[in-house]
């Protein structure tokens, strides 16, 4: 998972990041609430870990803006030293999904994050075999079948396909896609990413005439949409490329 941490204590940030990285997640740390909010306007995350007391905007203020202004349903876990009942209630009522009081334990934190991730997904997030419409993806053998026929994909195209099929309907930022498919330290140009996206769009038939749309969102990233029959027809008629 790609996880944003809002925390102003450097020791705590280092520890949480270390735990998350050991568990195979990518952690992005923010010391100030305003910086996290700015990042959320151009980047997607699978979960947010919010401390309450940070400089400028408090964690709960960040949470309010995430839910109300950004209309984001990203899972939010509060990790804070504030242990009063009314603090817990306030955070949960403002839209937090879970609340942990510091000091937190590693395995419990990871388990709670996984639980949030499971609850937040309506799609086949962790499944080894994804069956969706005409697609059957086997993550162990790394094969994709479309209408029972195997689609020839490179390793990166396979990873990209899995990422989109596990996140149908969700807007994924370019940074999120790059990090998940190529790894946190890889340098990948926008053009390379666009080329891979275009390739899987063609190979998997992720176009309106087949009931799918892999849409680019300007200056942000991509979203894979599964269109119902009516929308698919509308999209075909409004998209000259799709109709061609």
């Amino acid at each position, binding site marked *: 998972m790609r996880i944003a941490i809002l925390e102003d204590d*450097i020791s705590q940030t280092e*520890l949480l990041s*270390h735990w998350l990285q050991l568990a195979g997640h990518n952690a992005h740390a923010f010391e100030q609430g305003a910086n996290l909010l700015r990042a959320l306007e151009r980047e997607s995350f699978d979960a947010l870990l919010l401390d309450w007391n940070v400089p400028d905007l408090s964690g709960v203020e960040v949470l309010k803006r995430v839910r109300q202004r950004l209309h984001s349903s990203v899972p939010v876990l509060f990790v804070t*030293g504030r242990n009063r009942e009314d603090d817990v209630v306030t955070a949960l009522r403002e839209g937090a999904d879970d609340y942990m009081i510091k000091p937190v*334990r590693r395995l419990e934190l990871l388990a709670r994050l996984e639980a949030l991730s499971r609850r937040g997904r309506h799609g086949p997030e962790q499944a080894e075999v994804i069956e969706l419409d005409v697609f059957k993806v086997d993550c162990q053998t790394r094969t994709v079948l479309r209408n029972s026929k195997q689609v020839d994909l490179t390793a990166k195209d396979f990873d990209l396909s899995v990422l989109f099929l596990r996140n149908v309907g969700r807007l994924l930022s370019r940074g999120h896609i790059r990090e998940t498919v190529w790894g946190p330290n890889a340098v990948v140009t926008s053009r390379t990413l666009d080329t891979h996206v275009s390739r899987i769009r063609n190979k998997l038939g992720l176009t309106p005439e087949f009931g799918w749309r892999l849409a680019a969102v300007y200056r942000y990233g991509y979203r894979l949409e599964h269109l119902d029959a009516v929308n698919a027809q509308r999209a075909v008629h409004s998209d000259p490329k799709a109709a061609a």
Partner: protein
Amino acid sequence: MTGTRRTNPTEITRDSLQPRVVWLEKDLEQLVTRFLRRKEDELARLRQALSGADFETIRKLGHDLKGAGEGFGFPELSILGAKFELAARAADAELIAVHITTMERYLKRLQVRFD
């Protein structure tokens, strides 16, 4: 006679001279070393804050210590952090001085080993 018994910070007991050995996972070595170095630096900040009656700084340092100590493998530091936080809220300079001495002794006695 008050109900609260306070530790005498100058008291040297047999236990306070014993090393406190903590074993931690090897992959934590760099993180823990940096953490403990920061806590040494924070002792100086705590003393300075106390001399200026800056209880808010003491509260914040205590709050952070409470949050991080146990995660790094030092539950005693989390407990001490909570005590700093409480004493700072009560603006109890005498008690804060006791806690600073306790923290200093704890860090001196601490021997961390990694495997």
